[in-house]
């Protein structure tokens, strides 16, 4: 093995420490001897929570992320409390006081920022220190000093009504002081808010007895040794016995500038985060300037840390940082506030949607550009924040009815009271995970939805509790929620989105699951990814897919549904739920002969033989002489029907006839998740077609409504009408077109009800009915090809894929 390189990090704040975590978790400790300089004498802590320390809700020891021992465990040499003094880039060496000199191969600067101190007359005493009672608000030490002084102070003025200033004000209010905010411009938080929302926020704060002074330019601090007031440019003054300066931050760039690195507002970096004039020196966090932007929020810092760790660890040497779409979510003085992107329209065509409810302090404003969310301000009501953040982060096309984005439809409101929920409340009903267990995992360091779910198994059953787990995570992690990049991957074990993955599979002609792991995942096989990959490859390659049986779930290896005792259930296909005495007799004979432990009518109008051992499956199928009902796999399942015009006195359409045709046509068509269908012969809807993945309902006039995206399982949703048509053939044409589009566009394990909500029914109508993208002909041809390729899997009874395919247990005696 080559000798280890040396990596030196300067700055142990939120960006630097995050980078170390990422780098060591990617195995960077094996490639580098890592040395870090941090000028505070601690491990690293969560600066976002400092206002909690001031307000007394957080103990200082609770906000540490990694203690000093963490650095030892990870093999990182930390110079804690040591400020790096000088970088000699020629000899690649960092110097610090006490004769410390560390050579580097790679140098990472994460020097952060410092409070901007405005030039005020009377700011300092003769010895150059601040007047007594004057503080900045940036570090844990600042916090301690503010807290100590607040015990004796009565009236504090915070200079600067930005985000940090308001946070400081909140903390000081809780300490029992009379709090004044002094702000230079005409409205608070002017970097994030527009005047209307700022006004509402101001009113909310004033109702809490905070005094707001706008358009006040501070020029002097009054008093001799101790501060006694602030003098303003307009000649007025404000008496106070404590002042907190919170007038913005400035990147710490002196060290970089003195070392000859290119510095503008921040240290200028390329997309690979290396400095403009030195490829071995990198900068991340608040000191870095990327594409003319210096970021001050935590999410971009983490993205940068992640990208750099991936590059330097070799996990992904091509990783690049392309800038962040900035959004932030916070509680200002107990008021929910979320801001993202542009706060005002930028072009004439931009659409602005606003909703204002002054009496409750609610303000919602969306800036929509090209049908996508370009920005938003949400004050006083956080219900829709997660939905909008997602739409913003992913540049989703918005629903045409904008009101859907401003108001929840009731269903989600239950998840919002996570704070009030008792700790023993069971959140995941599949795996019995309580709120307390989730909180323990979050406190133990799990910061993304995936990490929390992995640690507790919450959300790993039916998945319907995930929004609630996310809500608890966001509430408990207090702004520290990480977005796990893997949520965008199609499968967890291959770091590509569905679009990227499909491109790579086609471009490199990968036809089997093992080939995908070999080429796209550095040979690392991941069990959790196999089924999703198999489903995708089969949709891409059709009959040219190289089927590896070990990439199938057991159900799909033996074409039956595994039960809790390791036996299997067998459901033969009964087209449209219409059977015959002969079929029933055969089913009864089989049930007796193979001693099925239960015979049950299913919800899909079929008959289930339960408790059959694996080795009897081929004989069961042969004796049944019926095709597989596919009740065990991610595919078209069944088409439930009502009696329809054949017998029913209300029947308007031949629902049994249609159901049989549908089942004969689509049997065995595989899809991202199962598809349950139904056909109802009149709007009384006895077959429940409106709550199926795809359904048809006969209406007066000899026509059929085609529904998509219905559900009546862990989630209940009425489907949307895709179109209304005249004939059975047309019903099946649109159903098939929808199925193929879902097969191509759906994420693995995404049910149609989530898929339809994600892409929007309007979009589906445009694409599938109006043919806006000119793809209908192709979709029809693709689904026809899939139908033509259908083979009844139960034929493997006669031709097993492997001699041991249906073996349950092999007996061995001593050698």
């Amino acid at each position, binding site marked *: 093995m080559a000798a280890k390189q040396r990596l030196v990090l300067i700055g142990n704040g939120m960006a630097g420490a995050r980078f170390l975590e990422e780098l060591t978790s990617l195995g960077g400790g094996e490639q580098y001897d890592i040395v870090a300089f941090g000028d505070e004498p601690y491990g690293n802590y969560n600066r976002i929570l400092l206002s909690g320390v001031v307000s007394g809700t957080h103990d200082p020891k609770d906000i540490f992320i990694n203690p000093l021992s963490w650095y030892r465990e990870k093999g990182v040499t930390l110079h804690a409390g040591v400020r790096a003094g000088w970088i000699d880039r020629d000899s690649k060496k960092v110097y610090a006081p006490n004769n410390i000199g560390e050579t580097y191969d790679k140098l990472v600067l994460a020097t952060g920022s410092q409070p901007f101190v405005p030039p005020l007359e009377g700011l300092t005493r003769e010895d150059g220190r601040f007047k007594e009672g004057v503080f900045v608000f940036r570090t844990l030490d600042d916090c301690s000093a503010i807290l100590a002084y607040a015990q004796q102070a009565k009236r504090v003025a915070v200079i600067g009504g930005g985000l940090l200033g308001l946070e400081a004000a909140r903390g000081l209010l809780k300490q029992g002081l009379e709090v004044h905010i002094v702000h230079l411009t005409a409205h608070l938080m002017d970097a994030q808010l527009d005047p209307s929302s700022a006004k509402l926020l101001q009113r909310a704060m004033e109702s809490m007895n905070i005094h707001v002074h706008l358009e006040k330019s501070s020029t002097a601090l009054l008093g001799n040794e101790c501060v006694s007031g602030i003098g303003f440019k307009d000649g007025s003054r404000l008496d106070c016995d404590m002042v907190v300066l919170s007038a913005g931050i400035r990147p710490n760039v002196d060290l970089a500038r003195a070392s000859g690195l290119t510095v503008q507002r921040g240290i200028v970096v390329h997309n690979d985060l290396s400095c403009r004039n030195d490829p071995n020196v990198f900068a991340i966090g608040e000191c870095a300037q990327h594409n003319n932007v210096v970021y001050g929020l935590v999410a971009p810092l983490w993205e940068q840390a992640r990208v750099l760790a991936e590059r330097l660890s070799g996990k992904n040497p091509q990783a690049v940082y392309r800038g962040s779409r900035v959004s932030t979510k916070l509680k200002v003085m107990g008021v929910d506030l979320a801001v993202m992107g542009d706060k005002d329209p930028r072009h004439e065509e931009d659409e602005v949607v606003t909703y204002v409810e002054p009496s409750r302090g609610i303000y919602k404003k969306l800036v929509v550009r090209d049908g996508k969310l370009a920005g938003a301000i949400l004050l006083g009501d956080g219900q829709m924040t997660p939905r909008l953040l997602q739409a913003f982060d992913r540049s989703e096309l918005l629903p045409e009815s904008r009101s859907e984005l401003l108001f929840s439809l009731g269903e989600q409101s239950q998840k919002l009271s996570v704070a009030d929920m008792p700790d023993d409340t069971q959140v995941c009903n599949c795996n019995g995970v309580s709120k307390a267990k989730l909180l323990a995992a979050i406190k133990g360091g799990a910061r993304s939805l995936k990490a929390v779910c992995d640690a507790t198994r919450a959300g790993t059953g039916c998945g319907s509790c995930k929004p609630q787990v996310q809500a608890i995570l966001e509430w408990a992690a207090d702004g520290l929620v990480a977005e796990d990049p893997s949520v965008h991957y199609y499968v967890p074990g291959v770091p590509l989105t569905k679009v990227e993955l499909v491109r790579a599979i086609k471009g490199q002609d990968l036809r089997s699951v093992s080939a995908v792991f070999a080429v796209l995942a550095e040979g690392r096989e991941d069990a*959790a990814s196999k089924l999703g990959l198999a489903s995708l490859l089969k949709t891409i390659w059709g009959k040219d897919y190289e089927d590896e049986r070990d990439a199938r779930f*057991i159900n799909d290896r033996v074409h039956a549904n595994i039960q809790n005792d390791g036996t299997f259930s067998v459901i033969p296909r009964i087209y449209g739920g219409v059977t015959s005495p002969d079929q029933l007799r055969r089913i009864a004979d089989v049930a007796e002969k193979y001693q099925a432990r239960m015979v049950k009518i299913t919800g899909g109008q079929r008959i289930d033989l339960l408790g059959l051992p694996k080795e009897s499956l081929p004989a069961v199928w042969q004796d049944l002489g019926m095709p597989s009902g596919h009740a065990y796999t991610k595919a078209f399942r069944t088409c439930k029907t009502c009696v329809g015009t054949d017998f029913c006195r209300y029947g308007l359409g031949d629902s049994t006839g249609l159901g049989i045709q549908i089942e004969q046509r689509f049997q065995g068509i595989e899809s991202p998740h199962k598809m349950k269908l139904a056909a109802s012969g009149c709007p009384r809807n006895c077959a429940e077609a409106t709550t199926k993945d795809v359904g048809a309902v006969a209406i007066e006039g000899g026509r059929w409504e085609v529904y998509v995206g219905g559900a009546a399982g862990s989630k209940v949703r009425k489907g949307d009408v895709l179109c209304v048509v005249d004939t059975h053939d047309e019903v099946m044409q649109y159903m098939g077109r929808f199925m193929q589009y879902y097969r191509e566009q759906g994420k693995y394990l995404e049910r149609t009800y989530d898929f339809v909500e994600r892409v929007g029914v309007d979009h589906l109508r445009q694409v599938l009915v109006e043919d806006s993208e000119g793809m209908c002909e192709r979709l029809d041809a693709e689904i026809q090809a899939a139908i033509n390729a259908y083979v009844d899997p139960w034929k493997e009874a006669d031709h097993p894929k492997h001699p*041991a395919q249906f073996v349950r247990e092999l007996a061995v005696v001593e050698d």
Partner: protein
Amino acid sequence: MLTASETGVRIYNLGPLEQVPLGEGRAFLVGSTPVAVFRPRNGKVYATQALCTHKGGPLADGLLGGETLVCPLHAYRFNLATGQPVGHECSALRTYAVVVGPDGCIRLALP
């Protein structure tokens, strides 16, 4: 290596490796002990107790990914080499020493 059995260890010949399809597992009743034998695509062979420590799932019907085994019933994970649970708190699986001999047959040691 599996050699002398004076210590009470018994060695069983489970027959040709090909009985276990590549990338899958199969259950064996070895004497009176149910055992699951796995043949992942990394070229190695592993053996564990046959039933999951969570709710008795038939592990030989599970999914494999490298050294990870996923139980078919509730997707609980285990490390094949050590038997240790992955991401949950069920007890570890018993593991058995297993090799493929020059004759292509699987040999397993039972204590």
